[in-house]
């Protein structure tokens, strides 16, 4: 039984680099788009072109939805020293810098306005912000954005890399969201996922194996 995350809700997806957080996000996005939801992808770690092609490899055609029910908030391209992305004709909300937390916040609002609310926002990854801003500034940003997403925009899921942040930081992020999903490697390098908690729902917090595209991972 697969259900969607509720609207007016926030979730943190935590796991070590390489465990499959990005694939998990894509699976959720595919499901959202299939159900006619509107989706905004806030990218700090990859260019929209990379995301499009990785999605394509998983048989998800993002470009077919772009501008209609899907938009990128691109915080990556403006600060990569690569040549800026050639225009695709699709509307993308460009943020000038990882340091420009205000700009990220406003671009998310504009994406919501463009698509029409409620919108489901996927933020990949919050970890990158820590390379460019103080934990204190990020904490306030995170709190404001989460409450904006919940009260006005719809739903937000943040991916965060486990093992690169201090425990205090991780605990703070976990305390500011409604639900936490964790992913891990087992000793034999299998990948597992569990729902740690979801405010307002009872969850079975046991670890489960997942391989490529988990279709029925979260039972809400």
């Amino acid at each position, binding site marked *: 039984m697969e259900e969607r995350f509720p609207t007016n809700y926030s979730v943190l997806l935590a796991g070590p680099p390489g465990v499959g957080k990005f694939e998990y996000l894509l699976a959720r996005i595919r499901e959202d788009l299939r159900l006619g939801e509107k989706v905004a992808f806030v990218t700090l770690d990859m260019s929209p072109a990379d995301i499009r092609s990785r999605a394509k490899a998983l048989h998800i055609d993002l470009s077919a939805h772009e501008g209609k029910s899907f938009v990128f908030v691109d915080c990556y391209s403006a600060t990569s020293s690569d040549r800026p992305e050639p225009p695709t004709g699709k509307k993308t909300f460009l943020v000038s810098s990882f340091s420009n937390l*205000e700009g990220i916040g406003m671009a998310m609002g504009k994406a919501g306005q463009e698509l029409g609310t409620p919108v489901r926002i996927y933020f990949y990854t919050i970890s990158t912000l820590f390379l460019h801003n103080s934990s204190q500034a990020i904490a306030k940003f995170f709190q404001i954005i989460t409450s904006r997403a919940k009260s006005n925009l719809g739903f937000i899921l943040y991916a965060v890399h486990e093992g690169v942040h201090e425990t205090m930081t991780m605990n703070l992020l976990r305390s500011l969201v409604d639900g936490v999903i964790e992913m891990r490697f087992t000793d034999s390098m299998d990948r597992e996922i569990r729902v740690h908690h979801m405010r307002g729902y009872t969850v079975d917090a046991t670890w489960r194996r997942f391989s490529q595209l988990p279709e029925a991972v979260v039972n809400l």
Partner: protein
Amino acid sequence: MPAAARAPTERAKTGIPILDQRLEGGFPRPCTLLLFSDKPTEKRIFGENFAVQGARSGERSLYVDFFRAPQLARGELKRFGPVDPAKLILVDATSSQLLLPSPERYHIDDISNLETIREAIVAAMRAEKPGRIVIDSMEFLMDRFPKEDVLRLWRELIQAAHAAGAVICFLFINWTLAEQDLQQIRSMVEFVIEFQSSLRGGIVRNSMRVSQMGEAGVKTNWIPYAFKDLIGLTVYFPRILVTGPFNAGKSTIVRALSEKSVSIDRMGTTVAFDYGNVNVFGIEAEIFGTPGQERFEFIFKIFAREVSGVLLVIDATRPDELPRAKQMLDLVGSRIPYVVLANKSDLPGALAASDIARRMDLPEDVPVVPTVATEDRGVRDALLILAEMIIGVR
């Protein structure tokens, strides 16, 4: 070196007529502006608009950008329409972070050193003698350097701008400081412009509020604003209600004010609403005219939500309708600013404005403006008065 360049002496216009009027022509020189919010807002549009207005009026504007690559900044500034790039001078703080050569004459080469940052900005100020300086943004520095050092740099930049007779404008969103630090920052500036952004019904709405420090200074209400391509910042009222009793001339008023208008009527009587988009005095407004008859009150109630202000239209020749007009006002609520339009004031038997105010028992500060909607007389004045009341500059 442009040795002949000198900072201008007249006031620095914002390009928003209704605000410039209240500021007696613009911001004085020298002076310091703090563009402040504690949540993400569109304050940068104000900063950009301010720089562009300067460059357009023949001054030089210096824009210090810690976030955007200069190519990106120049690209985004194009939204304001053509500006002489030699008048809009960028200080590039991003190229060095990416180890790229800067395309700009002025650049900060070591972003990890406050002294280098200060030197680069002050050198650009000395060489170009800008009339306006925009620092975008102080939170970038506040998040990277010790608070006391940033405050010292902040004061030094203010002093340098002051000595040069320029208006310096600091963008700042507070992520990390406590209230007492904010107090200290406010005490360093002459004007604080606060910004708000809200998302309601899926639409982003922006507003700002100007406060001059000191007891007798200018203080406005929240001013809703929007950005218009090629024009810049405009005051924007998303909903002005035109209401009043049956056959007072509401639809004619909406038509007289609007560039484009739509009326949903039956044989000349409005049965749903009139709509018009107004652009006068640098103010943009969406105007909604309600039907006057009581049986359409349910429509009225739909439009009465989130109203910026009300134009209450009465037929000056029909004193018997005044109680009905008063009743319609109550439907909107007493806190919304309103202006009474004494329409058909050219007809014989029309009541004088003072007579209407007395008969309706209006508070003293409510303006009654005589109008002749069919000849477009007094209508724009009434709207301007209403706009001034809403934003608190009257």
